[in-house]
């Protein structure tokens, strides 16, 4: 409380000083119109986003935060204040935001939350709606520059809860040389992907068809959600209208599961243990002809001192079932304010968020190791495209509106769903169940879980 008052006082003092300065300059300036000088002063005040204040943020230890830590001195200077960043791992971020953000006096001013947590966050009353700020500063935000899918994904029941700071997406990657040698075109749908994986799977030569991330729980669970989406099966088709009945054992779902089961035949024998980002590293070592991985991992592939496949790869969206339009999921981080933040701190926090997610700052982060697509202008930028060719692919997907938020619907059940899918599908993959049985089981378990929390009766 004391701290808040102090920094609020500091803020007001600064503003007063600047106002006096503006007036003084106006007095001294010979023929300069007062208005112009005031405008300069205003811009000067604007350029200093924090105006000497301190902002406390709790961020996940993802590339944006870590790039920020590298250039924290520059950031502080640019923001004209002090950014106090606290960086934690994924699980801790999730726990802390639930435990701390809803409280009456939150410990932080800004929190980073993952797109798929939105429903959970709103349900826990953890986030402050930002519509008032967004409307007021719409021009400064340059909303047109934010990819539509990302922007829409910060809405819940008509209210906006954050500004995207690090959206990222998984793409399909393939080896152009191997495909060309086999006379194949880049796969455009799930059938072609499966066929290509089969042809290119040469374990004796040390090259597998597809590097699959099958780690228990989240990695496999998320992969399954993507696979369902590829076959046009959202997990909760009607949640928007309040009907929580899951659709996890429809024909589409079973077909998706069968497809996954066939695909893993062409994966390395230990695919069930591939987690984190091993698939990207191993792809860089030439272990497989294709893989799914985060587009930021391109730097693994492009560094000649580290990668064995420089110049021999290309990327594209996740495949869909034949006949379906392109759809790519995306994930990543959004900056939000805690629900009960005081009005003075809210202003500081908002100015920080608005500034931090703007193109110039995001550009600085991209130059220091973060690879994502928060602003269209950045992925359009020729210099950045030259440094990161994958931006061209991402730009195409943005222009085609291929990124779909419904794939990873931000419902509170999402974590439970991925956990359930990850566990049951692993069982299926090691031979314990058929795809149909696995789908039926997941459906039944999900219904039990929903009944327990009262979403289904």
């Amino acid at each position, binding site marked *: 409380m004391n701290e808040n008052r102090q920094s609020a006082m500091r803020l007001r003092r600064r503003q007063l000083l600047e106002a006096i300065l503006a007036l003084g300059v106006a007095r001294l300036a010979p023929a300069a119109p007062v208005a112009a000088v005031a405008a300069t002063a205003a811009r000067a005040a604007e350029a200093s986003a924090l105006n000497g204040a301190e902002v406390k943020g709790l961020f996940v*230890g993802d590339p944006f935060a870590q790039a920020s830590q590298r250039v924290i001195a520059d950031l502080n200077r640019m923001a004209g204040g002090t950014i106090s*960043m606290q960086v934690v791992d994924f699980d*801790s971020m999730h726990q*802390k935001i639930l435990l701390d953000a809803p409280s009456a006096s939150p*410990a932080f001013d800004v929190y980073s939350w993952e797109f798929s947590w939105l429903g959970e966050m709103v349900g826990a009353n953890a986030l402050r709606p930002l519509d008032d700020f967004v409307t007021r500063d719409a021009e400064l935000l340059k909303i047109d520059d934010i990819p539509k899918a990302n922007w829409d994904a910060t809405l819940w029941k008509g209210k906006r809860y954050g500004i995207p700071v690090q959206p990222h997406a998984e793409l399909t990657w393939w080896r152009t040389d191997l495909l060309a040698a086999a006379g194949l075109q880049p796969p455009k749908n799930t059938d072609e992907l499966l066929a290509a994986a089969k042809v290119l799977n040469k374990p004796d030569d040390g090259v597998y068809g597809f590097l699959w991330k099958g780690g228990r729980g989240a990695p496999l669970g998320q992969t399954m959600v993507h696979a369902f989406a590829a076959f046009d099966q959202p997990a909760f088709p009607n949640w928007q209208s309040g009907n929580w009945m899951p659709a996890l054992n429809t024909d589409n779902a079973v077909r998706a599961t069968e497809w996954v089961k066939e695909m893993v035949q062409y994966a390395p024998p230990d695919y069930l243990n591939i987690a984190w980002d091993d698939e990207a590293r191993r792809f*860089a070592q030439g272990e497989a002809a294709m893989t799914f991985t985060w587009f930021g*991992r391109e730097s693994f592939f492009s560094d000649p001192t580290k990668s064995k496949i420089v110049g021999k790869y290309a990327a594209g969206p996740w495949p869909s079932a034949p006949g379906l339009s392109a759809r790519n999921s995306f994930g990543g981080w959004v900056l939000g304010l805690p629900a009960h933040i005081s009005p003075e701190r809210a202003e500081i926090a908002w100015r920080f968020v608005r500034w931090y997610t703007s193109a110039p700052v995001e550009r600085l982060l991209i130059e220091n190791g973060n*690879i994502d697509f928060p602003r269209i202008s950045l992925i359009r930028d020729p210099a950045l495209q030259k440094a990161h060719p994958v931006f061209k692919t991402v730009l195409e997907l943005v222009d085609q509106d291929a990124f779909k938020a419904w794939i990873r619907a931000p419902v509170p059940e999402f974590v439970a769903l991925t956990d359930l899918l990850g566990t049951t599908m692993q069982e299926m993959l090691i031979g314990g169940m058929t795809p149909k049985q696995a789908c039926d089981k997941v459906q039944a378990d999900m219904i039990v879980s929903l009944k327990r929390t009262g979403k289904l009766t």
Partner: protein
Amino acid sequence: MTTRNLTLGANVRNLAVEVAPAVIAVARRLGTVALYLAVLIYLIFCLAPLLFMVLASLKSDVEIFDPKALFSFTPTLVNYQEVLTGSTGAAQAAASYMGASTGPRALLASAVVTIISTALAIIFGSAAAYGLARYPFRGSRDLAFFILSTRMAPPIAFVLPMFLVFKALNLLDTYFVLIIVYTGMNMSFVVWLLRGFFQEIPIELEQSALLDGYGRLDVFRKIALPLAKPGIIAAAIFSAIFAWNEFLFAAILTADHVRTLPVAITGFSTSMGIRWGAFMATAAVGIIPIFILTVLLQRHLVRGLTFGAVK
């Protein structure tokens, strides 16, 4: 017949008596060699994983995953540089995504919390152990069991209630909270270990001191404690190891102001990948202080556990 057998037997026995020492000497030599061999095999098993940890810490992230670069690679100190100084240099920045580290701060935080909580656990724990050993009363066995039971609790069971309590007391993310919790968690081990030690000390020593007019506290400080020193050192070492390596409570009860080494190390695990090199370097660096401590005290360690355990 019998006579000849006896003579034969006696001859064999005489021969055996003469040859035996040489045979035994050879057997002993071979036996010794076998012992050293066994020790060597076990030490290889013990140290090999640590060797790989250090090797990995000297490689760049991508090299770690090249099966051919297991032993043949160019070592780099970049990971240690990052962990210890917080900077990575431009070259690393291009290939990795990670930023400043908290290595030095984490070492300091860990050291502070470990040293203070261990000292407190020893002070309170030795007193309690002495009390339980020398002044038993009707409920003391149950009290001793209660103290033991605090070690049974799986940390995850209590982490949420503790979070809520300390949040209400506004003590989260302070040195105080970790010190208190670690002191409590180490207390049980200290008490149970030292109780046996104190029981080993001949009672007569203390009784004569009491008769000579020494106060009870003096008897404790001047007689019992010094005689139990080996046990105290043993308890201190294992308490320090526990506090130094503890992860769950540190992760939940603190954020960034107080950030111990095990929490800092998991900061290298992002939602998209894990920074193996930095992770291994931090782990390697983390062992060093404890190892130094153990080397300095290892003689006392062995003697210490002696007294406490047997009873």
